[in-house]
């Protein structure tokens, strides 16, 4: 089994994914984000894992997302399996996937503030919040 890591840019990303799809990489198995807060510039790195079942190969695509725009093209039209993963990345890191069919929060409640997996989001204990509950003074 071969394993290859490809670093690319946001502009080239979609083209690269299309070429991977045509190179019989049938599955997009994983998409996640690494937050290099104060360690690297730009801050967010999208890591996508591709699997070719016919060739028994894996490829990892890494893209750094611009800090200002925080957006990257969605690949749901090429790989429908990216749908949930992109929504998860949006929910947890606040990355915008352009032209995603339904970019809403997936794991957290809709009225949640912030993106929990960012490094500057605390992880500590928080009180219970009810939706639409009247505020206790």
């Amino acid at each position, binding site marked *: *089994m071969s394993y290859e890591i490809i670093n690319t840019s946001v502009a080239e990303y979609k083209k690269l994914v299309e070429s991977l799809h045509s190179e019989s990489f*049938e*599955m*997009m*198995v*994983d998409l*996640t984000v*690494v*937050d290099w807060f104060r*360690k690297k510039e730009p801050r967010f790195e999208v*890591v996508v*894992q591709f*699997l070719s*079942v016919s060739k*028994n190969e*894996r490829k*990892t695509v890494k893209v750094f997302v611009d800090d200002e725009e925080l957006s990257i093209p969605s690949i*749901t*039209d090429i*790989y*429908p*399996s990216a*749908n*949930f*993963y992109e929504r998860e990345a949006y929910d*947890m890191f606040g990355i915008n996937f352009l032209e995603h*069919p*339904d970019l*809403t*929060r*997936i*794991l*957290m*409640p*809709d*009225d949640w503030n912030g993106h*929990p*997996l960012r490094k500057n989001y605390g*992880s500590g204990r928080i009180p219970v919040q009810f*939706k*639409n509950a009247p505020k206790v003074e």
Partner: protein
Amino acid sequence: MFDFWATNSEEGGWNISSTDEGSQKMLEEENEKQIKIQTGTDVIDDFVIDEDTSDDERMIVNMGPQHPSTHGVLRLQAELEGEVVRRVKPIIGYLHTGMEKTGEELNYFQGPTNTTRMDYLSPLFNELVFSLTTEKLVGIEVPDRAKNIRILMTELNRISSHLVALATGGMDIGALSMMIFGFRERELILNFFEKTTGLRMNHNYIRPGGVAADLPDGWQKDIEEILKIIPEKLQDYDDMLLDNPIWKGRLQNVGILTTEECFAYGVTGPSLRASGHSWDLRKAQPYSGIENFEFEVPVLNEGDVFARWRIKVLEIFESLKIVEQALNKMPKGPYKVQDKKITPPPRKRLDESMEALIHHFKIYTEGFKVPEGDAYVAIESPRGELGCYIVSDGSSKPYRMHVRGPSFCNLQALPVIMTDSPIADAVAAIASLDPVIGDVDR
């Protein structure tokens, strides 16, 4: 069209008009492209909405999150036309535990405690994938005995997980004896787990550098008993269900998933193999020395719910073969890496050696340091490809720990299976995909 919500509730607070779960509602009808992508019609082409149907015949039914046959807290929003499901949207997150955030606060030695609680039907696989990724980053090779114990335990875990899948699947469809049978046989394996690891579930047994403890005395006897009893009981299942006309009529040609759809939606594991494609990471990308074991990869071509049920039974037989070989050729030797920096010394040494005490203290308080880098390792869990992606920044805690749960991805295929099929088949479809919500939401 959103005014009917079958939530069993008389209180108004749960209706869509008065909650702010607005963006979770169904997509607007006129946006054809969104509907297509969401329902997966870019791959299959059987999505038909009859424009002549009046609104009286359409309704939106909420199934879950508290529903006995959604295998946990899965919520499905289905748009029905009469009795036929036209659109369905799985809504997840009701069991989101923030384990990836917690994983960044635990060091590598404590990591399996966290990951084992993700997919609670196959906890040992979660520990294994975390340990393998850590070992890949550190660059250590575990001893043969540890590898063999890992294979033995994970394959037993595969059997117990499939037994629960068969049991709950039977229960959902109405074969209640199947539920009783499945859980009865699972107890056998859980007893062995309890003897070995101390817990029935959530073991934290497989750790970076080996396993937590050696197999208990007389473990061969227990395994032999399991190897003797389980095939007999599987025969019982076959006698009861394989030629059962009700069971077959209920499941055959229901919820068909083709290989192309599996690829498009990232479906792996038994569901992919039931659709006619032989793909098993144990064969294709072997881990932990499983290439030294002889077993077959069962493949069925139908791709329906019956095939997905049947393939789990066949896989249990194959796992039993692996367990038998692991029993017969268990090598002697250490069960963990003899590296003082990575695995703690045995308890007895603490009374004798100051150095051992220091290493023990260091490992349990600080953990061990892992060189910078990242790694993705995937193994074949009972539900498909279970991957773990760890980014290390050189400290003793993962900088980022991400687990690719197979259920999360498999669940995306649910709209494909359920669209344009009767609502009564929905439960069978969910049960056949065997999602574990702990793995979906993490």
